[in-house]
């Protein structure tokens, strides 16, 4: 809650088509990527979440599922566990919550993004990828309002365009990028 938060993080939200989209982005990032990346993917609430083991094999960054109050370390990709919300705290740790689903989703992209906006302000980078619902739109706007960087996957090339379109509608200032451009942005512009 401090006004001079120094922690930085990238937060990503994706739904339908997420695995392919993330497969086009995350493996392109270096092992020493200078920020943590926290990701919410809508998955069914069954308790075996395969995302972390799947991407661990594909990525140079370390990949794991969030454990409550874990420090969000740079060079690490954190996936939200099934059936929990993930929130960013201003001390740079990650909290879990079992509060009710938001717009039928737990984890919720809005919950993650709004907490990142609160905790990190202009040090937050929010990215909305493919998806068939409108989760994340309000969260992306919160990050933009807090002065953070906001990016939306080009809806013309997204597997499902509803989520990128909803995000752009809520947050017209967002930069529209292809997956390749997102990799370039993260590894060149942001990592500099």
């Amino acid at each position, binding site marked *: *809650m*401090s*006004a001079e*938060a120094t922690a930085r993080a990238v937060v990503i939200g994706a739904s339908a088509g997420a695995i392919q989209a993330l497969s086009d982005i995350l493996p392109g990032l270096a092992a020493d990527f200078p920020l943590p990346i926290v990701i919410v993917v809508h998955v069914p609430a069954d*308790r075996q979440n395969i995302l972390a083991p799947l991407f661990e094999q594909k990525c140079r960054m370390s990949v794991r*599922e*969030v*454990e*409550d*109050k*874990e420090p969000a370390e740079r060079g690490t990709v954190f996936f939200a*566990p099934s059936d*929990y919300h993930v*929130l*960013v*705290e*201003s001390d740079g*740790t990650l*909290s*879990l*919550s*079992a*509060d*009710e689903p938001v717009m039928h989703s737990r984890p919720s992209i809005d*919950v993650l993004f*709004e*907490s990142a*906006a*609160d*905790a*990190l*302000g*202009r040090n937050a980078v929010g990215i909305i990828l493919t998806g068939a619902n409108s989760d994340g739109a309000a969260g992306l706007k919160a990050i933009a309002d*807090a*002065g953070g960087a906001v990016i939306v996957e080009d809806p013309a090339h997204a597997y499902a365009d509803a989520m990128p379109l909803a995000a752009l509608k809520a947050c017209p200032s967002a930069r529209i990028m292809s997956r390749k451009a997102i990799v370039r942005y993260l590894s060149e512009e942001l990592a500099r």
Partner: protein
Amino acid sequence: MSDITEDIEIRLLLEALHQRYHYDFRHYAQASIRRRLRQARQQLGFATFSAMQEALLHDEAMLPRLLGYLTVQVSEMFRDPSYFRALREEVVPRLRTYPSLKVWIAGCSGGEELYSLVILFREEGLEERTLFYATDISQDALDTAARGIYALDRIALFTENHRASGGKSSLSDYYTTAYGNAAFDKSLRERVVFSDHSLVTDAVFAEMHLISCRNVMIYFDRELQDRAIGLFRSSLVRGGFLGLGAKESIRFSAHANAFTDFVRTEKIYQRREA
């Protein structure tokens, strides 16, 4: 960035809640509590947290309404069946060696986890030697837990979880249905003590063999988590067991060394002997 005025207002509101009513949320994890407070402010129709604070200080009727937002918690019976399977297969054989047992469900909320444990203990023949303590800070939650009535549309999931946990009976043996609800049998409550207890401010009250506290401490900041885990440490007999939620850990706690992993994958810890 959460604006600085809102940060101040939230701190003052939590301070008011503590000083006026002795409910202490000051060390709850900030991100979640802020989310819940914003929800409360919107739905209760206050323009600012300061306005909400004024109402809270001068009108006692505001207290239960606000607490409803701060303590709301929904669980499932046998949530994470593999946890209950591990209790059954790994922990129960150890518990059998004691002539009498005390089990504490800390933060019992609406009672789903309590009934799960009582049924498991009955199936394993341990219920009669066990006293269960179900505690929560919310009187509403305790009342709900003591009623043991759940909407019928939740029962399919509870039944599936129970079966997956290695249940030896049919869940339908334990409830009767009426008016869209399932009412769990009162015999399940015969060995249960319901009590108002706060992990934030209250102390050890009995010596326990098993403490189950799942997805309660995720709402605490690390300092408060340390206090609660210290309380569990002092409450457990040597060799006693502590079960946490699937994504919780004591490895960030000052008390980590007082425990060993007992079933690592299920977050079941054992208090060290020495």
